[in-house]
């Protein structure tokens, strides 16, 4: 009798421990899934590159942490990439000014001869490129020295929040630049083109970051940011709650509160909801749709970047720049499971995915691999709108 109770206790302890592990992974997935759901809700595009922004977040965190630990010099390649993205945004914003557009639109004048037009076209693009290079020459060093200065300070307990803020900013810049370069020109075309482009962007980011002068494809051990300790035990059961788990939950809760405030209580959140509801009507109401979409592409990637930090902390290792694929897929499935477009749905779905993954993995690692996809197929065939999704009639 006593033996059965002991086994029973051990079993329930095991289950509780697995659920806690699942919630830890799930909070990481939730932050990615929110980005998928936000972007899908606004422009109806599965942003495959979202998973790679998650990867960029993890790698940026890796470089910054190993710099501040004195293990490596400050990564200049990072500041060049991000400097380039910032410069692109600045230059394209300047070129979109009405005055400059007026000057440039002279090429469209039919009275101008063809070769003059061609020459002007070349000049225009050369000018654009020169501006880009010049602005990059300013932004990249500025970024390099300012961030090196910040991270060489002895930040102490402030280090973690500063790291999160920095990674969020970097990922937001990359997200906005990605939308400007790849997705905006395709917005009026077939949706399939945008989907293929998203695949292309994802593939590009993965392979570009694998190059030696970017992040490199080597296996990297993430330095221990916070020493893992047990801070509490569940009474009566053999279950430990670690500080890493608490950090995961606290970060998720803080960002969720922030996101909720942003979406529900501010003007820009209201505009976002309007654009998600009906883009044409929103633009008729005077909402700058482009600005809202850019904003969405800043928030989603920023959350994914934080998730990248959590990933690096949870697993302690970055396999290669291709590491984003599976977490990204699982987060996407979580978003679908919760009902795409619904923010609370994404979080619930992510917890379900995390817990189911942990249990499937404890049976067989190959099963954990397939379980997520089987869940997805079943969900889409049975209830495509997900748990909290609104049913939507296909418009003809």
């Amino acid at each position: 009798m006593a033996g059965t109770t002991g086994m029973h206790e051990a079993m329930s302890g095991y289950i509780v421990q697995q659920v806690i592990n699942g919630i830890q992974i799930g909070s990481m997935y939730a932050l990615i899934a929110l980005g998928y759901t936000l972007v899908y809700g606004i422009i109806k595009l599965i942003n495959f590159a979202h998973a790679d922004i998650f990867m960029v977040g993890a790698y940026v965190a890796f470089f910054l942490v190993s710099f501040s630990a004195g293990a490596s010099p400050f990564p200049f390649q990072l500041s060049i990439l991000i400097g380039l993205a910032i410069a692109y945004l600045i230059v394209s914003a300047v070129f979109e000014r009405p005055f400059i557009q007026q000057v440039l639109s002279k090429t469209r004048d039919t009275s101008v001869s063809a070769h003059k037009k061609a020459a002007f076209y070349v000049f225009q693009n050369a000018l654009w490129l020169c501006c880009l290079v010049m602005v990059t020459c300013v932004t990249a060093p500025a970024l390099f020295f300012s961030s090196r200065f910040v991270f060489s300070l002895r930040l102490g307990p402030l280090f973690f929040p500063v790291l999160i803020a920095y990674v969020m900013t970097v990922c937001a810049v990359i997200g906005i630049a990605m939308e400007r370069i790849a997705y905006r020109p395709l917005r009026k075309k077939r949706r399939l083109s945008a989907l293929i482009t998203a695949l292309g962007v994802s593939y590009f980011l993965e392979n570009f970051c694998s190059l030696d002068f970017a992040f490199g494809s080597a296996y990297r051990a993430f330095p221990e940011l916070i020493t893992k300790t047990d801070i509490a035990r569940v009474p009566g059961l053999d279950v430990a709650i670690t500080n890493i788990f608490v950090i995961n939950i606290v970060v998720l809760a803080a960002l969720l509160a922030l996101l909720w405030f942003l979406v529900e209580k501010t003007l820009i959140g209201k505009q976002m909801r309007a654009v998600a509801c009906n883009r044409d009507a929103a633009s008729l109401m005077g909402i700058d749709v482009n600005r809202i979409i850019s904003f969405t592409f800043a928030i989603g990637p920023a959350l994914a970047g934080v998730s990248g930090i959590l990933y690096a902390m949870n697993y302690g290792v970055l396999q290669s720049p291709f590491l984003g694929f599976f977490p990204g897929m699982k987060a996407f499935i979580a978003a679908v499971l919760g009902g795409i477009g619904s923010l609370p749905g994404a979080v619930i779905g992510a917890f379900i995915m995390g817990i189911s993954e942990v249990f499937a993995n404890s049976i067989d690692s190959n099963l954990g691999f397939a379980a997520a996809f089987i869940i997805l197929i079943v969900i889409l065939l049975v209830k495509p709108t997900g748990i909290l999704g609104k049913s939507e009639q296909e418009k003809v």
Partner: protein
Amino acid sequence: MVTQTKQSHFSRLIVVVIAFVAIQTVVGCLSGQRQFQYYARMAYLIEINIILTASLALINGYTGQFSLGHAGFMAIGAYTSAAITTIMPKILTGASLDPSTFLGNAGFVCSVIAAGCVAGVFGFIIGFPSLRLRGDYLAIVTLASGEVIRAGLRFSNFLGGPRGIPGIPPFTNAAYLGLFFVASLWMMRNFVYSRFGRACIAVRDNEIAAASMGINVTFQKVSAFIIGAFFAGVAGALFAHMSRYINPDNFGFLKTLDVLIFLYIGGSSSIAGSIVGAGIFTIVPEGLRLVNLESWRMVIYPLILILVMRFKRDGIMGDRDFSFLVPWKYKEMVLKRTL
């Protein structure tokens, strides 16, 4: 466009076939020599990639579905044929099929066809969600199906599990490849330029209009999946007997992405697009390898894909096809519409 006579059309077709046979013979003769082995292998790989790309074109380009699970079909084909030529004979007689015997060759041909059929069955299963889902959701479900197939292969110890199947006999030679290549392309071309193909295009362009014209949309979609999967399975079988070693990770999502890139850069709605896309983009990385830029291949491909999507959405060929591939009867029709 120069109007052709029926005679010049068929003589061009014959010239193309003779040229292909000549090239294939030369490749086959040279493949024995050590210094040419590499080039022969390149030629084989191009042909396999063309079959794969054209089979994806049937699903993605002509019927307008968006499948991301093509590597899964290829894996099914490769594993089926390897099971028939390598695993089963090893269990029954202790050795895999011998390429020098008649029985071995007959077994290989059967295994390729069986590979196509089994892949077709999977195409039927995976094609079913396409009835309810479209666009992005279909893409994700097919991607997931491909990954489930891969996970299943890693799971099955009978098929070697994650270690894969080594020691597959080298059946794929110039003669077999030429035969299967021509036969597959010819069959796909016949599908495309038939009532069936036109119905697929109608479904792609407007499902509701197609249905109201009496086209069975369900039938078209599912059969496009089955036929596409069949030829992907054939390509997988040929690939398995060329590389002589397969494992589940050969057929991951990156393989599908490669085929997608061939397809959309070449032009998704013509056989010529598949030939051009797969042909060029199988050779280009070898050129990059010569100038030590091989790791840049994977950076350049997606960039080209993004640029093609932005500036020339229909790919290099658009919906133009090579003149020798278009049936004469169809050509008359098309010429009347001055396409």
